[in-house]
């Protein structure tokens, strides 16, 4: 592959992410990885539902008493918006508009960082209430489910940042276009998982 080949929006293919065999392989392979990730999160959700509100006798914590929706709702909105901004970034990637893509990715990263900050604040709040990782089966299942999602957010943000910095000087080519595309796909997956966490953990938790 020739990295020095210059593209214009006219010569840039409609689907740069699958225009090469390497791109096609990455595309299919990444969807399969997401299948494995789906099974992983399904297992974590199942465990959470089995262990929800379970603890040593006399445990003071329960999902309905612990969770409060306003903060989590804000986090949900932030993450959903970041998914939208990453769509804008990919729109510009497909139109070979590198600067606009970088700008929208930058906004995506900022929103992701805001989400992460709020999640750390939330965890910190629970720990101060005494609801630590080792408190009960309920707390272990909660922190592992939501924490695994949080770790995915950290990885996704690191991936975006690494790609943006690495390619800042040289722009888009057929070698890095699939990478940007897959990072965005990963970000959508993280967002979808959060929708389920918001529903299963927080909404169903508050209802009781």
């Amino acid at each position, binding site marked *: 592959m020739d990295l020095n080949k210059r593209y214009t929006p006219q010569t840039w293919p409609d689907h740069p992410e699958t225009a090469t065999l390497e791109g096609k392989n990455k595309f299919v392979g990444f969807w399969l990885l997401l*299948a494995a990730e789906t099974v992983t999160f399904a*297992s974590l959700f199942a465990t959470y539902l089995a262990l929800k509100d379970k603890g040593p006798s006399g445990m003071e914590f329960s999902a309905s008493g612990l969770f409060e929706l306003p903060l989590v709702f804000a986090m949900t909105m932030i993450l959903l918006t970041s998914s939208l901004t990453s769509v804008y970034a990919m729109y510009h990637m497909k139109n070979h508009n590198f600067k606009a893509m970088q700008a929208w990715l930058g906004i995506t990263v900022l929103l992701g960082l805001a989400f992460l900050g709020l999640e750390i604040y939330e965890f910190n709040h629970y720990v101060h209430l005494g609801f630590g990782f080792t408190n*009960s089966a309920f707390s272990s299942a909660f922190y592992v489910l939501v924490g695994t999602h949080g770790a995915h957010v950290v990885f996704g943000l690191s991936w975006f940042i690494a790609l943006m910095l690495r390619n800042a000087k040289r722009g888009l080519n057929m070698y890095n276009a699939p990478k940007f595309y897959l990072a965005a796909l990963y970000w959508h997956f993280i967002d979808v998982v959060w929708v389920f966490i918001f529903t299963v953990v927080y909404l169903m938790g508050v209802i009781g």
Partner: protein
Amino acid sequence: MSSNSQKKGFGATIWDYLTTVDHKKIAILYLISGGFFFLVGGVEAMMIRIQLMKAGNDFLSAGTYNEVLTMHGTTMIFLAAMPILLAFMNAVSPLQIGARDVAFPFLNSLGFWLFFFGGIFLNLSWFLGGAPDAGWTNYASLALASEGHGIDFYSLGLTISGFGTLIAGINFLVTIINMRAPGMTYMRMPLFTWTTFVASALILLAFPPLTVGIFFMVFDRLFGANFFDVTMGGNTIIWEHFFWIFGHPEVYILILPAFGIFSEIFAIFSRKRLFGYTALVFATILIGFYGFMVWAHHMFTVGLGPTANAVFALATMIIAVPTGIKIFNWLLTIWGGNISFTVPMIYAVAFIPSFVAGGVTGVMQAIAPLDYQLHDSYFIVAHFHYVIVGGVVLAILAGTHLYWPKMFGTMLSEKLGKWTFWFFFIGFHLTFFIQHFLGLMGMPRRVYTFGADQGWDLFNAISSAGALLMAIGILILLVNVVMTVMKGERVGNDPWGDGRTLEWAIPSPPPFYNFAQTPLVRGLDPYWIEKMEGNKEGMVYAEPLGDIHMPNGSFIPFVISLGMFIAAFGAMYHTDGHAWALPVLIGGLAITFGSMLVRSLKDDLGFHVTKEELIADNERIQREARALEGGKKGGLK
């Protein structure tokens, strides 16, 4: 990376294998390390049989027996059977579809090194304070109570090697989806490639639940979580569910590639197209599909209730249908064929009755009320050894003979191979057939000894004698391997003379770029078609000769895996209050993620083999082929 005719120094060869991304070399790595662990697991099996050879034996203490038994099962499943099958998948399936390499050569290497370091980590437990001792199923209520670090070696070792297996699974799926040669439609794929495909899909969906379950175990034992601790609201059955949601598909991950190897063998050595190819393909897919719906038949006695037990019992019985379809198709492939009883074919023919016996006892256990009687008895031990040894291990031995020439360019001795077969086959039935009756007589599995008044002496002694015969068979195989390597007699493209699929159309071993030109596939058994039409060139090609793009070798997969290996020690010893443990954990992870970052930031565009180099290399191959022909004629005089 230049043509493989150049002689290299020892150090350069080692470095070559440490950094290789070539699927054929990775296959050799898998075969050697899987074979090594197979021997380790075999020694453990012999220790078990020596201990049980007579009543009240004291060869092993009760505690050591538990460790040996746990490590035997874990090693054989995760570190021997699967890697050796992955060796054949790597060596053969990219060639069978006419691909240049797998889809992700770098990840292929990473998958191997993760498996390798995971296996080493697990086995280091023998030297660092004791091996895991809660059985290969590692049930949580038992595992949480186990002292020392044995269980942690199990959890962390299997996590690392499990990542490797998952990566390998994704790799084969993408390779088969995207990289088939022109004309190689799904319904023209050889059966071994099909079974690789379905087994990889099972790996993709079955390993994450195991990883999740093991993570819970790690968190519970090392970081104070409470997933399985009933006093803290946990639930120990969660482990059993996750283990078997993984564990049952795992059985099919092992047996499907074994079916694939036997399908190839039946067709080659009956000199017939596979009977019922389409039915065999759909039976493979169905087995994969049902494999996910039967896990609770391992848990009939847990108390899930009559409804759950009935559903899982029925689902289990249904699996016998596609498996039966396969058995009959193989029989009808042999029927009326022009059969040659080579070593692989003997194994294949012996496999059918052996595996059917294991399958029949499996259906017996699917009857939930009967399972209450059989559960945790030696009947179960006999059953799963009949399917695993009678199916998977026979396939591994057959595959070793069948594909040895393609992987190494030399031929294992048929004569010694037959000796191995007879010792192993007789020993196998002698060891395990009688265990059915031991189970029915009430002998529980996993006991380290029994009393002289229980009437189990004779049958156990017979069983141990059978194990000795199997060990002799394997030793003869080792002698065979050493002698073949020493002799080094080269063979041509199609050493069995009746190869049907693409891997037999190119030199043994193939050049590092596989096919110089991508072949054009004109039907099922493409190489056979060309042979029947008198094509002397080997194949028809889909493209003119041109430059070939190849990936660079890389040392990074080794470093990524090494980082996780180091981190695992940190995670494990941090519970003992060592000050160095946490830095080691963080440092190991830093190595892993740091080298991933390097991989991500550094452009790695590969290199090209030019048309001129290909022409020169082809001339060398032709020269060697002519020399081989001449040598053969000379030998006949």
